[in-house]
């Protein structure tokens, strides 16, 4: 159990660093979805299935869609920054 927690924690922290360091916004959005996914798995390991379902539906679903729509309206969807 500690090994699984350690692996998922390191995936989450590496993706969180990637959100800030990647130049392209599309890649940063994908890394943000990975952070949400790893976080919901951690919630399951903490014996909180309600919270895990909410985080999976909202973090990986609605948050990413909101970011994608906003990036498209801003016109920086394709180009990096």
């Amino acid at each position, binding site marked *: 159990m500690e090994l699984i927690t350690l692996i998922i*924690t390191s995936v989450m922290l590496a993706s969180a660093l990637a959100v800030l360091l990647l130049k392209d916004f599309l890649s940063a959005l994908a890394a943000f979805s990975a952070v949400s996914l790893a976080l919901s798995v951690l919630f399951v390991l903490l*014996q*909180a299935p309600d919270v895990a379902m909410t985080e999976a539906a*909202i973090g990986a679903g609605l*948050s990413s869609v909101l970011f994608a729509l906003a990036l498209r309206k*801003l016109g920086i969807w394709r180009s990096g920054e």
Partner: protein
Amino acid sequence: MEMGVILFMAAIGLMLIGIAGIVFPSHLIRIIFGIALLEAGANLLLLLSSFKEGAAAPIMLETGFPQNMADPVPQALVLTAIVIGVGILALALILALRVQAAYGTLDMRQVRQRMERDIAKQAGISMPSSIQAPRPITTHGADDE
């Protein structure tokens, strides 16, 4: 390392990355990413107080309720906190859209400069500058030949 220490450091690390994402970048969308990461880290930190060693989820199984159940109160709090977080994120992104429409850029340094210029123009005063800025050379005192 036991599980509690790993999870605690994960929550602290996520919060610190989120705060670094608010303080360091200059593009507004990266700052909003930092806000979302900070919120995720804070929710994880709050949920850590509901876990016990060898606990089970607080839901009834086929055989009745488990003996040692996790604390349901922080789970209910984090549930509503996540939903509020997505509402805040939506409002922040729409405000970013309006900033782009008003100032033409999302780089916060240029937005701050243009805001200062607009405020100074509205109030009728000159823009704030430092005392040691070099004064422009005027030519009307130099031609005395």
